[in-house]
């Protein structure tokens, strides 16, 4: 007679599939997960506490380190919050530069996700393709901001650097190149039977669940909720661009895969239009005080980041440092549904489910 019993299994914190320092305590019965308990906080750096002693401009580099694969959107959310409070009109040229930077970064972020997601299933070559193309974007952003990942590019009232000579042309060349590559990606992975078997119907949840669990980004759109803050609560100059909100109805890992790849294409559309509309000349910084002081009061703004809704709450008492700063970090919220998804799943699906959520631990832990 075979004796069975439940056992505890630690996944992480140092485990390649967790994409950082994320730990899962699994209670397993054979191969079936009975209960999953996420343990986070390994990368908590107290950004919000630190920010209380920093001037607004000094906080921007800290935001680079939250979602470190999509730092431009993080940069944007804090300057956007301060600009909203102060009522600053950002010059056109700066807005276009911001949009270009953010969308390029979004594409880079999704490429990274794509590569590592497939890598988790055991396919190594897609990662190399993804990283090759992502590297091109990082080079572009490097030329623009002087950094590959931690850009520190945006400022309250505009951006730090103007586009270097020939940069716009390079971006324009990159767009059709990546379009071609995307076709290759689909050929390489999307139709692969093993891949489909491992993602189709896996990690499924409904629209209601997604909303109830405060999911956002592709995690939400994969259930059919047509919701994109760029479209529905337009900030910056996103109302000037014609693009679609990619949604899927299935709500499984494969749906999220298609959503993200679709978003790359939409981002390319935005980049293209932004290049067309790009003002020939103009300021890249609004007239702002040397020492930025947000007016007394509070504000909460949210924007569409690569992983979902990034929010920034500032409570100011009129000083040059925020009284309280809070980031709504999409990965933190998106990860909450994980225990529910893992319950009753086979352990081999864990990787697919976790990978499809697309977390960045710097953002989860704040």
């Amino acid at each position, binding site marked *: 007679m075979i004796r069975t019993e439940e056992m505890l299994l630690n996944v992480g914190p140092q485990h390649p599939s967790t994409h950082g320092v994320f730990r899962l305590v699994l209670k397993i019965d054979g191969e079936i997960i009975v209960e999953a308990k996420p343990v986070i*906080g390994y990368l908590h750096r107290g950004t919000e506490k630190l920010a209380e002693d920093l001037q607004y401009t000094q906080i921007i580099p800290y935001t680079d380190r939250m979602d470190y694969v999509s730092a431009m959107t993080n940069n944007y959310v804090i300057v956007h919050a301060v600009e909203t*409070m102060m009522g600053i009109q950002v010059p056109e040229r700066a807005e276009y530069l911001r949009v270009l930077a953010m969308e390029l970064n979004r594409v880079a972020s999704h490429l990274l996700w794509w590569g590592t997601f497939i890598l988790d299933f055991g396919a190594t070559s897609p990662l190399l393709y993804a990283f090759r193309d992502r590297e091109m974007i990082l080079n572009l952003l490097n030329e623009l901001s002087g950094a590959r990942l931690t850009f520190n590019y945006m400022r309250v009232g505009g951006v730090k650097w103007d586009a270097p000579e020939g940069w716009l042309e390079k971006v324009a060349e990159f767009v059709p190149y990546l379009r071609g590559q995307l076709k290759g990606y689909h050929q390489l992975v999307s139709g692969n039977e093993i891949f489909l078997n491992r993602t189709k119907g896996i990690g499924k949840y409904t629209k209601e*669940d997604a909303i109830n669990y*405060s999911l956002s980004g592709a995690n939400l759109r994969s259930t059919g909720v047509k919701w994109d803050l760029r479209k529905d609560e337009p900030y910056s100059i996103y109302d000037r661009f014609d693009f679609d909100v990619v949604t899927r109805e299935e709500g499984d890992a494969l749906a999220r895969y298609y959503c993200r790849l679709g978003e790359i294409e939409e981002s390319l559309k935005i980049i293209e239009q932004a290049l067309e509309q790009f003002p020939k000349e103009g300021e890249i910084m609004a007239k702002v005080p040397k020492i930025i002081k947000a007016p007394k009061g509070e504000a909460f703004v949210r924007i569409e980041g690569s992983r979902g809704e990034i929010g920034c*709450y500032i409570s100011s008492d009129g000083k040059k440092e925020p009284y309280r700063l809070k980031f709504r970090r999409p990965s933190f*919220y998106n990860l909450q549904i994980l225990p529910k998804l893992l319950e009753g799943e086979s352990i081999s699906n864990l990787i697919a489910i976790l990978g499809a959520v697309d977390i960045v631990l710097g953002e989860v832990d704040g």
Partner: protein
Amino acid sequence: MSGEKDLEQIKREAAEKAKELAKQRLAAKQAGEGNDPKQVADQIAEPVVKESVAAAATDDADLAKKKAAAAAKAKAAAMAKMKANAQAGEAPAASEAKAEVSAPVEGQDADLAKKKAAAAAKAKAAALAKMKATGQIEANAESEAQAATDAADDDDLAKKKAAAVAKAKAAAEAKLKAKAEAGEGADASSGDDDDLAKKKAAAVAKAKAAAAAKAKAAASGGGSADDEKAKAIAAAKAKAAAAAKAKSAAGAKAGAEEPVEEKKPSPNQPYLDKYVKTITDNLGADILEDSYINPLSKDVPTLVAKRESYYRLAEFLKYNELLGFDYLSELHGTDFQTHMEVYVHLYSYKNRQSVALKVKLDRNDPVTQSVQPLWAGADWPECEAYDLLGIKFEGHPNLHRIMLGEDWVGHPLRKDYEPYDVEV
């Protein structure tokens, strides 16, 4: 960054001082008459900031001469006042005018005024040196100190005048509140000189300084730091006065350009009215503590729930047909020192509308009901608020210290948090 800023301010202030000096000379020529009670009143309105600055100034022993020290103290006080005034944000033009009026009034005696001016210049130099010596720019500190000493050697009478100014200031301060700091300043200065005229001089300097500070505060762009520096160096010359004047004018202009807040009703006002009406119709009038449109936050309708009805209101916001806020976008707490606050940002995908829900909690015992049963997405954010602020959410299925771990001492985002480390 802030250090640079302070230095800039000091330099500007030095320029202002030079300007004042020129004014006094002019006044001496005009030889006006009379007393200005306003000035005295101004003098009494001593800022709190003064203490710290004055203390910093007294720290410095390098300049050695007692008189110079006293002068610097007077200077520091004036500067502190400038700052305070700048924050109060009166109309710069008004105080400028005030200063102008008092200048001629003050100059009773040509000789006296001249001496006073000299003393003022000296005081300024000393203060500048002192501020630098306190760690702003160490390289410059020496030469500045030298300058200060030179100035101090300059003239016996002037020294006396400077001391008198300091004394006058100290007296005013003492009048406001009998601070030990003030007493010290008074002791340092040997009070042998005449009084009222000096007081007036000090008042004039203050008024002038206040005006300048205000102008500066209003000015947004301003000149570069190098520019400021050059001006400060030239401050001893009356030439700088003109520059300072131009600057203050520019500042006034910049102030006028400040964006004016729109007064027209928010487009979200109807939504707020609808929410409030629905809530009061169904739950009664004593649910809400407050409701308003937050113009800083993209005009989001904001509801402040009463402590005991927070959960009921949240529940209503989610399940009511007309409201239907099915998505919790954000939940966090803030320590406002007088109270704790939980801020919840909700969104309705059905109605495409946002609302901010707030509840104020007792800071000493921050407890409220968890909204996790309503929005599963509130689970971790509530844990985070518990971890970092110590807010307890009753009814939460698994309230734990999600970021820092259970053995962490204290709640870091509380304003009275003291880091605890066994190894320290």
